[in-house]
């Protein structure tokens, strides 16, 4: 139920932000559209019922800031490699361990890896993640486990519900 209400809030908020008009007719139309979408979503059983993603939310902005810094840093490094007169790349494909338990945190870790230029996640499994890196240096940086720890820190503590969900 919480998920449905949350989805409705997000949809209706998006409607308001995108329309920018606040006449009663348009607001009601937006609410009806959002409610209809939520109803269809519920009927199609598309809502994710996993409970364990409410972690220490206040850590997320900190993580995003750190990630933004990493992205800029690695963008510059990859840019230098792209513009170098001789291509100095040495791509590697490797499986790395990851410590996230919930699916959401795993997705977050994999997406963070992909967002950082120089590394792309290619497969996510149980407790490990396959990564393609443009250079060995990029792979070593990931192997240090810094990002892995930071993502895990935003994860919720293991609760009973989460333990039941986890395989």
């Amino acid at each position, binding site marked *: 139920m919480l998920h449905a209400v949350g989805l409705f809030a997000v949809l209706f908020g*998006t409607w308001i*932000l*995108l329309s*920018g008009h606040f006449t009663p007719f348009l607001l009601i139309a937006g609410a009806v559209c959002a409610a209809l979408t939520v109803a269809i979503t519920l009927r199609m059983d598309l809502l994710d019922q996993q409970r364990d993603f409410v972690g220490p939310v206040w850590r997320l902005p900190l993580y995003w800031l750190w990630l*933004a810094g990493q*992205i*800029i840093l690695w*963008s510059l490094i*990859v*840019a230098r490699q*792209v*513009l170098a007169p001789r*291509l100095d*790349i*040495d*791509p*590697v*494909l490797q499986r790395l361990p990851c410590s996230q338990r919930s699916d959401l945190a795993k997705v977050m870790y*994999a*997406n*963070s890896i*992909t*967002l*950082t*230029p*120089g*590394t*792309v*996640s*290619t*497969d996510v499994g149980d407790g490990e993640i396959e990564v*393609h890196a*443009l250079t060995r240096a990029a792979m070593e940086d990931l192997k240090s486990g810094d990002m892995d720890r930071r993502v895990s820190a935003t994860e919720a503590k293991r609760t009973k519900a989460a333990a039941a969900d986890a395989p």
Partner: protein
Amino acid sequence: MILDILSWISIAIGAFFVLVGGIGIWRMPDLFSRMHPAGIIDTAGAGFLLLGLLLQSGDWLVSVKLVLIFVFLLFTSPVATHALAHAALLDGLKPWTRRRDKARDKDGEP
């Protein structure tokens, strides 16, 4: 005035990263290595460009839309890239490495 200068700088950086991404897409030897420079466009390129536009917007609705575009890009681009890499690997595409380049065996669809 300071805002203007900041936004110009930001747009210039964004344009530079977009250009680098384009060059990388053309220059890199195989699909997997092309994804890395391509990712620069979606993150640093789009980020700095939209930040520059944001500083010029002056209207909160416009600013919100710019932020939304960036957020959509941040959520969709890694998923698309990951799906692409995953699909290509499942299809049997082998990543280019230094050794394989010397062996000169070619892969990919004829």
